[in-house]
């Protein structure tokens, strides 16, 4: 039987767990992150194992990633988000050269080495502009579900002017535009354009080589993907279920780390 590994990605908004058998991803589960990363990781892993009918102990290698990775007490190893996003993207899109992870509270562009490792990266983790958090705020003010923002933006013929500099100032702009009777579509288009502007700045800082792959929850927003395509001038590749890519990378990383260790020491290695 194949050796099973698990990847756990503790994000600021959601926690993802996937099981990988060395050839394919068997399953995944995402839940909203609790304050306690250890519990969130444990729950997500438990859910996916139950889903797959796996018993405790059947998963031998476990790698945690994401901002809360060091709080996951049961993970054998930890790996950076940049590396896990790269590993996951390269596995799903073999020609991946630049990977952009658009998360709830941050965004990172990574340039890959030929072997799939990290050559260079640029990130924004300090400012809500250019992150999923801003799209979520906009959805609240527009009174539409988060997953409607992308389709609404795509339906707009033109966009409202929304600042890309500060999410809080942009928030007031959205509110006054709503009061002025601006259309939801145009505001949604302005919002994704604002986020795309910041994401594109990061992409341009490291440059595009090979396929441009978008991962993370933000990549589920087709309006945002389209806006990035227009700004960068390259059509991005978006894997199915992009929010799981970093967790998949962590599971791959778990197997790689296992393989690189001498057999006797491998179990429970730090």
């Amino acid at each position, binding site marked *: 039987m194949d050796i099973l590994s698990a990847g756990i990605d503790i994000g600021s908004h959601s926690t993802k767990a996937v099981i990988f058998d060395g050839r394919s991803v068997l399953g995944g589960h995402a839940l909203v992150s609790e*304050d306690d990363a250890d519990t969130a990781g444990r729950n997500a892993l438990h859910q996916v194992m139950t889903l797959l009918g796996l018993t405790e102990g059947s998963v031998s290698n476990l790698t945690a990633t994401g901002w809360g990775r060091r709080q996951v007490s049961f993970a054998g190893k930890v790996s950076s988000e940049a590396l896990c996003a790269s590993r996951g993207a390269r596995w799903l899109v073999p020609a991946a050269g630049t990977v952009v992870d658009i998360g709830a*509270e941050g965004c990172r562009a990574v340039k890959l080495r030929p072997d799939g490792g990290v050559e260079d990266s640029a990130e924004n983790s*300090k*400012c*809500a502009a250019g992150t999923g*958090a*801003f799209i979520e*705020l906009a959805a609240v003010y527009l009174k539409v579900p988060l997953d409607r923002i992308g389709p609404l933006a795509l339906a707009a013929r033109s966009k409202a002017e929304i600042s890309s*500099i*500060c*999410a*809080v*100032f942009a928030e007031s702009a959205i509110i*006054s535009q709503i*009061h*002025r009777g601006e259309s939801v579509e145009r505001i949604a288009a302005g919002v994704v354009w604002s986020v795309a502007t910041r994401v594109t700045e990061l992409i341009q800082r490291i440059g595009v080589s090979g396929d441009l792959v978008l991962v993370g929850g933000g990549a589920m927003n087709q309006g945002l993907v389209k806006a990035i395509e227009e700004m960068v001038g390259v059509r991005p590749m978006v894997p199915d279920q992009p929010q799981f890519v970093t967790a998949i990378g962590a599971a791959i990383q778990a197997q790689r780390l296992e393989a690189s260790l001498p057999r006797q020491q491998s179990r429970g290695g730090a």
Partner: protein
Amino acid sequence: MYVAGIDIGSSTTKVLVLNQRDTVAAHITETLPDTSEKAESILAEAISGCSLVPKDVSYLVATGYGRVNVPFASRTVTEIACHAKGVHFIFPGARTVLDMGGQDCKAIRVDDKGNHQSFIMNDKCAAGTGRFLEVIARTIGIPLSEFGSLSLEAKAPLRISSVCTVFARSEVVRALRKGVPRADIAAGICEATTQRVVTLLKRVGIEPELVISGGIGKNTGVVKRIEARLGMPARIPPEPQLMGALGAALFAREEMPK
């Protein structure tokens, strides 16, 4: 003879009317999307209490971010110049002015004549502006006017790790859920604000006397922390929000054709 200054800020609009010697009227009202166009009626409202009408005001200087669209302004002057002038009029010894408004923050160096020599401004990021305090005050359900004094009752100020207002708000929501007292949250937010403005002040260079104007001047929690951090007293004008409008009115009085 009457002159006026109108300071159209992002949150509030301030009007101040002078005669040859004194202030005859002062008025603070919320800035609305059409405030610039309606500036005349705001002036009318400001002076209605002293039986004046807008045409009694012979010269008006507009300042603040909304200054460009005021149809009947004689002239516009930047808010930096107006703040420097207004503060100098109240405190001639002022050499460094910190002005924090609803959506920006400026550190200004002033000479002995009230001219601004240099300034640094943040109007790009809500952190370190009045907006940051406003957002958090709303989140913890405390009126902004009580925020500063509440922060002084804190036993263990919450450490805020985010700079960004949006992320800080999430931290505050999590802290509330955990039962962290509001005073401790307010203190953490005042500390974070202090950190930002002190950085701005240090970049412009601090020379006494230090004057704090704008809405922040009313927040004792931030003012006391700035004083403690710099080891220097800060002077607060009696009406800290009116300094820009006062400066504008003083420009109007100087420039009015005699």
